[in-house]
């Protein structure tokens, strides 16, 4: 970053920015104020929290990795290959961002459920049932989170100076080597940012997960599901669980900020 005085923003931006910061910070302060600090220890040491936290971390990290594995190829093709219906395919891939997650989950159920279009064949061939399993949670998370990665990586690929890849080809690198050794490293920061976005979205995923994978403590009940059912009975527990979720996400986002968004 440049040294010396940081630039002054145009005055007109300041009130909007302040309002924005308040919009994000006040609800968090609300949670902190309402938190059952004296009961926090007992509430959080229960098996519900530890199991839900474990499932949340496993499923969100797995979802981010799978999102990268399928999102990067999609982004590459969407950014580089001209084919009829490309706009439609891009819209389709981005759809989960606007679709209510519950609708997404229902759609997943009719596709990959035991009676679903693909799920039925899968069940009859292998006996595997995706709903009500951790794989179901991961699939729901991948469905909801991948568009964020595709959007980020496609933008990075479009901004990448294509001459570097051409230069690599002239130097004797085949298409795969160009992709592996030039394209991928050069979009590395964006890929990491996209994966982080996908992870964060998956961590908070509720609607598609509950609709597709159900909720069972220790098997499919992630933190957001635990928070939701806790709200029905004991708001203190729900707030305590939410605080754990907030703490984990903030810790990760702050720890990685230097890496991926430049020093600040």
């Amino acid at each position, binding site marked *: 970053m440049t040294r010396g005085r940081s630039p002054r923003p145009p005055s007109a931006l300041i009130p909007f920015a302040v309002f924005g910061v308040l919009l994000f910070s006040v609800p968090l302060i609300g949670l902190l104020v309402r938190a059952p600090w004296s009961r926090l220890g007992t509430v959080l040491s229960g098996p519900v929290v530890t199991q839900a936290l474990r499932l949340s971390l496993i499923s969100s990290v797995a979802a981010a990795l799978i999102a990268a594995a399928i999102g990067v190829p999609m982004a590459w093709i969407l950014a580089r290959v001209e084919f009829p219906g490309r706009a439609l395919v891009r819209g389709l891939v981005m759809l989960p961002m606007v679709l209510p997650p519950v609708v997404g989950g229902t759609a997943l159920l009719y596709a990959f459920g035991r009676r679903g279009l693909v799920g039925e064949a899968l069940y009859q061939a292998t006996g595997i049932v995706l709903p009500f399993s951790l794989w179901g949670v991961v699939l729901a998370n991948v469905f909801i989170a991948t568009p964020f990665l595709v959007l980020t990586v496609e933008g990075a690929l479009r901004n990448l100076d294509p*001459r570097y890849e051409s*230069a690599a080809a*002239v*130097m*004797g690198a085949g298409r795969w*080597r160009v992709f592996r*050794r030039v394209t991928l490293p*050069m979009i*590395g920061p964006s890929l990491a940012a996209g994966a982080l976005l996908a992870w964060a979205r998956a961590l908070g995923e509720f609607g598609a997960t509950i609709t597709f994978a159900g909720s069972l403590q220790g098997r499919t009940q992630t933190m957001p599901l635990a928070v939701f059912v806790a709200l029905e009975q004991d708001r203190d527990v729900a707030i305590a669980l939410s605080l754990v979720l907030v703490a984990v996400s903030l810790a990760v986002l702050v720890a990685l900020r230097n890496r991926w968004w430049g020093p600040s």
Partner: protein
Amino acid sequence: MVGAIVSGLSAQLHVERPSGFVLDIALEAEAGTTVALLGPNGAGKSTSLWALAGVIALAGGGISLDGRVLDDPASGVFVPPEDRRIGALFQDVLLFPHLDVAGNVAFALRARASSQRAADREAHEWLDRFELSDLAAMRPAELSGGQAQRVGLARALAAGPDLLLLDEPLSALDVGSRARVRRMLAEHLSGFAGPRILITHDPAEAALLADRVVVVEAGTVTQTGTPEQILRAPRTAYTADLAGLNLLTGAAGGGMIDVGAGPGLQVADRSVAGEVLVTIHPRAVSIHPSRPTGSARNTWPSTITSIETLGNLCRVQFEHPIPLTAEITVEAQRSLGLEPGTRVWVAIKATEIEVLPG
């Protein structure tokens, strides 16, 4: 088409870009010679480079290198870029920002080397040869312009290509590094046996580095010949403009250039030293009835020896103390009452003087 030249490059490039731009040029370069592709911006020089490299496919024509057909749309032959064995020093060098200097050179070697390890070892040998060993672990962002060009040339030559492409190797450099990079180019080009194509918009660069010049304008060849032939007998407005450049030689030092007569020329770049080639565009030479005040630091009195009118422009010649041509409008000539024999003041801004190490 298959070229007449068996040892060297023979190309008939016909390319149609989606923008509607059409390139159609013939290009031949014998082994051991440098052919400059000289032209203004947008003439199709870079398109030619990427077409030779195989990044842009030909719509017609063909390319053959040492008798090997690389691209021939008529017969469907197309050798992809990675199999063409071409070395290129790209415009802006295009060193991979995520690899260090050694990694960049090793990248070009990896395709031919038996293993990554062999490529790494060979890369260090090349860095030694180019006196770049100290920079091996540095990232491209940490290099100066001249250093980057040296790494780029090492990378282009490392894999032992059959054809060398040089895209504006000097234009992005300051005058001081131009001298070093030019020397380095001269030194390493002499050791390269294959044909070389130099792409440039700078006639001085072409004159210094090329054996033959192909002038490209708006996608077609407008003139070919040795640099001297082109400058002596320009055939288009563009080459005439190039030919009309004031070309002086001199010795530089301390921001001044001694051109052997008259006052020394002040230049913007103080780092330049030694033998230099100076180019001054005729439009950059202004004529004043009395001693001018203002920012032009190079000014001296002189006598007009001749005036040549071309349309609404006049080329005004001076012999002493420094031989120069100025280009002014006919209106300016009339309002100043300029005739051969008129005593006037000549002025040139320091920033308008282009200096190339000789």
